[in-house]
């Protein structure tokens, strides 16, 4: 390490400059600012879809700050008050009525949770459309996937805290799913719950996870996500690697410094978001029962099962996949797995080792799906998890010669639109009680969803691709 060198300033230099110089000699403050934002060069052709990363950071901060204030007054206690209401439930009403501005903090937190998922789903859509996960950005995508998993866990743990009917029974259903795992299932559920049913023990540990454990992990993952991004540089809607075309100043010709251009651009995006957010918080915090479930205004009661137990809207798409996996559907899946394995043997360029491994797994799955083996509930959990995990493999499934949807064959756009429709259909069906028609539609949507990803190595390379330009498509403002 070089010896300490003190920056010298002329005697009439402003105090602020001397202070900054003192700090910079001991901590890379200015360097960090410049590398991470001030002089971080980003492509100039970002469009609407590129605001959601910044918005996600904003909402994370919002949730943490509102969460801190809620934690000052919330009590994670499932025992009853003298009036027969669970203490946790009563503490939320205390916040809503007695804590000055408590109602505002509560609504910001509940709306923020739903806003977080809307933003994250749109953020992932951007990634899908523009191939943001392609080499060399695979690790950004993987960190992002880990963030998504943590976010879902954070929302799940947080939802139990108000201890309403939906909180209680939603947690009961989801933790019971772990009981479907053969051999270790029941013990695993017992360990997660801390009791034989969701109870005070469960509430207290979920509180700990929600308030500190997962937020710490989330902050670390977000830092990793951003560090990985800044290491390789942002992609852009044209999928062009801007660093391949440097100007005389050493910066990409198609990039601009984030400050002031994206500072001011993101400020605008944030102001639009906060306007919409405020409209919801102040005028429709329940959002028709989607952001704050009506049933959750009944205190959780282990003796009264609600007629319909549905997860919060942001989980319903994956929940639909779980419900669609009926014992009848297992036969369809068995055929699908066999067909896919045969397809892999014939068309895939993978090594024989991998092909044999896949065949073994496929055989185990098919045998496990036969009547009398593992029941549909277990496979439902497997595909429920699979529908989330398959996203992580996207960088290695996409074999398109171009990154961005702009230069793919036109028919690819319909394939993506199909995925969007399937996802929204699954999401909608998950909010409704099960029905014969709904189950069929969910099953078709599930097949489409998995086919989109599993067959991507082939369809993503098919068709006539358009020529990717050398320079980004940018129209002067």
């Amino acid at each position, binding site marked *: 390490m070089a010896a300490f060198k003190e920056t010298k300033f002329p005697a009439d230099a402003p105090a602020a400059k001397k202070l900054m110089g003192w700090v910079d000699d001991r901590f890379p403050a200015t360097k960090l600012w410049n590398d991470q934002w001030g002089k971080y060069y980003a492509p100039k052709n970002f469009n609407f879809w590129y605001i959601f990363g910044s918005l996600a950071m904003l909402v994370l901060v919002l949730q943490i700050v509102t969460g801190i204030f809620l934690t000052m007054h919330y009590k994670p206690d499932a025992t009853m008050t003298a009036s027969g209401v669970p203490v946790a439930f009563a503490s939320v009403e205390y916040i809503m009525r007695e804590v000055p501005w408590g109602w505002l903090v509560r609504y910001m937190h509940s709306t923020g949770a739903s806003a977080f998922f809307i933003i994250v789903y749109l953020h992932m859509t951007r990634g899908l459309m523009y191939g943001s996960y392609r080499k060399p950005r695979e690790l950004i995508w993987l960190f992002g996937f880990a963030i998504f998993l943590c976010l879902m866990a954070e929302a799940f743990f947080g939802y139990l805290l108000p201890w309403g009917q939906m909180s209680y029974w939603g947690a009961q259903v989801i933790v019971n799913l772990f009981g479907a795992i053969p051999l270790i299932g029941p013990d695993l559920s017992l360990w997660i719950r801390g009791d034989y049913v969701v109870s005070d023990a469960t509430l207290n540990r979920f509180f700990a996870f929600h308030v500190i454990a997962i937020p710490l992990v989330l902050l670390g993952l977000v830092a990793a996500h951003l560090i990985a991004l800044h290491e390789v540089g942002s992609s852009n809607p044209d999928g062009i690697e801007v660093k391949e075309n440097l100007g005389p100043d050493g910066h990409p010709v198609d990039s*601009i410094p984030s400050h002031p251009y994206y500072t001011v651009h993101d400020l605008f995006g944030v102001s639009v978001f906060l306007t919409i957010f405020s409209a919801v918080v102040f005028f429709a915090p329940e959002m028709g029962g989607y952001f704050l479930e009506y049933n959750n205004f009944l205190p959780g009661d282990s003796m009264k099962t609600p007629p319909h137990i549905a997860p919060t809207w942001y989980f319903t798409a994956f929940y639909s996949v779980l419900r669609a996996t009926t014992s009848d559907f297992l036969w369809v899946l068995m055929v699908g797995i066999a067909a896919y394995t045969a397809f892999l043997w014939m068309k895939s360029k993978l090594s024989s080792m991998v092909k044999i491994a896949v065949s073994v797994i496929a055989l185990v799955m098919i045998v496990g799906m036969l009547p009398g083996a593992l029941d549909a509930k277990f496979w439902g959990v497997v595909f429920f998890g699979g529908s989330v995990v398959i996203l992580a493999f996207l960088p290695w499934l996409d074999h398109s010669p171009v990154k961005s949807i702009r230069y793919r064959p036109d028919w690819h756009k319909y394939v993506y639109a199909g995925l969007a429709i399937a996802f929204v259909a699954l999401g909608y069906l998950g909010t409704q009680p099960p029905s014969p028609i709904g189950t069929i539609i969910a099953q078709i949507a599930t097949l489409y969803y998995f086919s989109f990803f599993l067959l991507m190595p082939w369809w993503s390379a098919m068709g006539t691709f358009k020529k990717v330009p050398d320079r980004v498509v940018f129209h002067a403002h």
Partner: protein
Amino acid sequence: MIFSKKLLALLALVPALAFANEGGFPLEKAPDRSHNMAALQNGAKLFVNYCLNCHNASAMRYNRLRDLGLSEEQIKNNLLFTGEKVGEMMTTAMPAKDAKAWFGTVPPDLSVIARAKATPSNSGSDYLYTYLRTFYKDDNRPTGFNNMVLPNAAMPHVLWELQGVQSAKFEEVDDPHEHGKKMHKFAGFEQVKPGTMSKLEFDTAVADIVGYMEWMAEPAAQKRKQLGVWVLIFMTIFATLAWRLNASYWKEVK
């Protein structure tokens, strides 16, 4: 934008998943009392007199009623019956254990019941307004009354003196789901014994109680909306300024 048109056509293929509401007595819309202080005060009076005998409203502090234009003196003199202080919560004197023994179930806490009973098609107020007005004479029930909205409700018809006694008429019609079978279809109420209020007076009184319960479920609602107007005005101005600031910087980018 050919792609958008085709996408729209594609979306039209998604079958309309409109499922009919499951059965349930059709709910009437509760009259809006949210801007009527006098009605809300009347509702508070009726609520304290009739409901707190069995139910708790344990999140509701008596002195919060000042928001409805009542003074602490008025609250102390008219609404406190069992020795509570004006700063205490609205709790019932009936012990839960006795309630369970007498009614078979503990009467639920009513603090946020108006929010809990909402559905996508009806507000919680609609449920409560219809519920309180559809008790009918039924000698098979321990309380002598049954309810159209909540069949076999354990709750007695607390407001029977005001409404009087009504009976429900049923007619036999063909079951639309199973041919050859008959089912009972509700065909209106019939007043058996008049109460102290006319139908209009009673409906108004119940609307007041329900309006009060809706207010009680979220006392900050009015303030929330009032503040929201100013917030949105500010945010619109701010967003417009941010938009023009952004445009002015990006003019430099070629």
